[in-house]
């Protein structure tokens, strides 16, 4: 027999409601599935088939989660999230990527920085210098849409977590490919590459974006503060 409560909790863990409300939704939905399952058993279905049939009631868990969130928090909540985080974040990422590609087309060579440790870190200085501007643009757009302090900062550094996710996905895939083609994987080399590229393409650019985003947020909050003082 399925543990319906655990199953619902696992699939709807990202509801984003406060804990009491989330727990209430989990309880209500797991009770529904439990009752459906018991009714199917009473109809004479074997346990396995009853579980499968009851599960069809849940359908697509992602869709269910999205619809519940929209019903509980309203359509406005999703719209706000889109305008405060996703649009400024993706714009920051697009601008920084397009600028980097343009620099590469102009044959700007990244500057190599060596240290006595694992190897060379590549820095594209003109690109790094542009990042505070892009971070500030993301922060400005998010702030203009009414984003909270953390949302504004997240929108400004958006390319860094996006790149981290891509890195985390890329390395295991690479390891699997190397394993399939029968090449020996030197884990110290992989670790060095992760460290080197992590610093050069995520950590330092992330800090540059954050610097621009923080500055923009600071200036915008000061402007708002002085406006409200003037209003008084």
């Amino acid at each position: 027999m399925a543990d319906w409560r655990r199953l619902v909790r696992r699939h709807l863990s990202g509801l984003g409601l406060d804990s009491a409300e989330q727990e209430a939704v989990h309880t209500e939905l797991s009770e529904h599935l439990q009752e459906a399952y018991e009714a199917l058993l009473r109809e004479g279905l074997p346990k396995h088939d009853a579980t499968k049939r009851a599960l069809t009631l849940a359908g697509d868990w992602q869709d269910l989660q999205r619809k519940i969130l929209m019903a509980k928090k309203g359509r406005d909540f999703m719209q706000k999230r889109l305008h405060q985080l996703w649009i400024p974040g993706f714009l920051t990422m697009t601008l920084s990527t397009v600028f980097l590609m343009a620099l590469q087309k102009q044959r700007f060579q990244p500057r190599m920085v060596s240290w006595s440790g694992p190897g060379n870190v590549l820095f594209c200085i003109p690109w790094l210098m542009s990042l505070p501007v892009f971070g500030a643009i993301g922060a400005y757009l998010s702030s203009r849409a009414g984003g909270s302090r953390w949302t504004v900062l997240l929108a400004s550094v958006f390319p860094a977590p996006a790149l981290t996710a891509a890195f985390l996905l890329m390395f295991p895939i690479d390891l699997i490919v190397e394993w399939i083609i029968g090449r020996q994987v030197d884990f110290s080399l992989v670790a060095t590459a992760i460290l080197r590229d992590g610093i050069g393409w995520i950590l330092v650019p992330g800090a540059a974006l954050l610097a621009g985003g923080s500055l923009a947020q600071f200036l915008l909050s000061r402007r708002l503060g002085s406006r409200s003082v003037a209003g008084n």
Partner: protein
Amino acid sequence: MIGAGIKRGTAELAVLSILEEGALHGYEMARRIEEQTKGALRFTLAALYPMLYRMEKRGWIRGSWETSANGRRRRCYRLTAEGKKKLSPIRQEWAELFHALRRLTKVSHG
């Protein structure tokens, strides 16, 4: 088989109508609607609960936790005075729509 778009529109009417008979929890509501419509209206969780939460927010229904004889906690929904007021114009609208469609299909067949 009734199409998804029409089903969405009729779902609220179905829920309000079934709750007019008395307070019910989600599973029982879905079961009775399916039984009374001979399977034409069948609710998945994604179709039923977001709609119940929306209707509760609008004040048409009110949910409260109840513990059954076997100790199970269920959320039962009741029709509020606001919901009762809403039911009659929705019924009227759907009756008019079905009447118009019946007239239309008769004309096109004739």
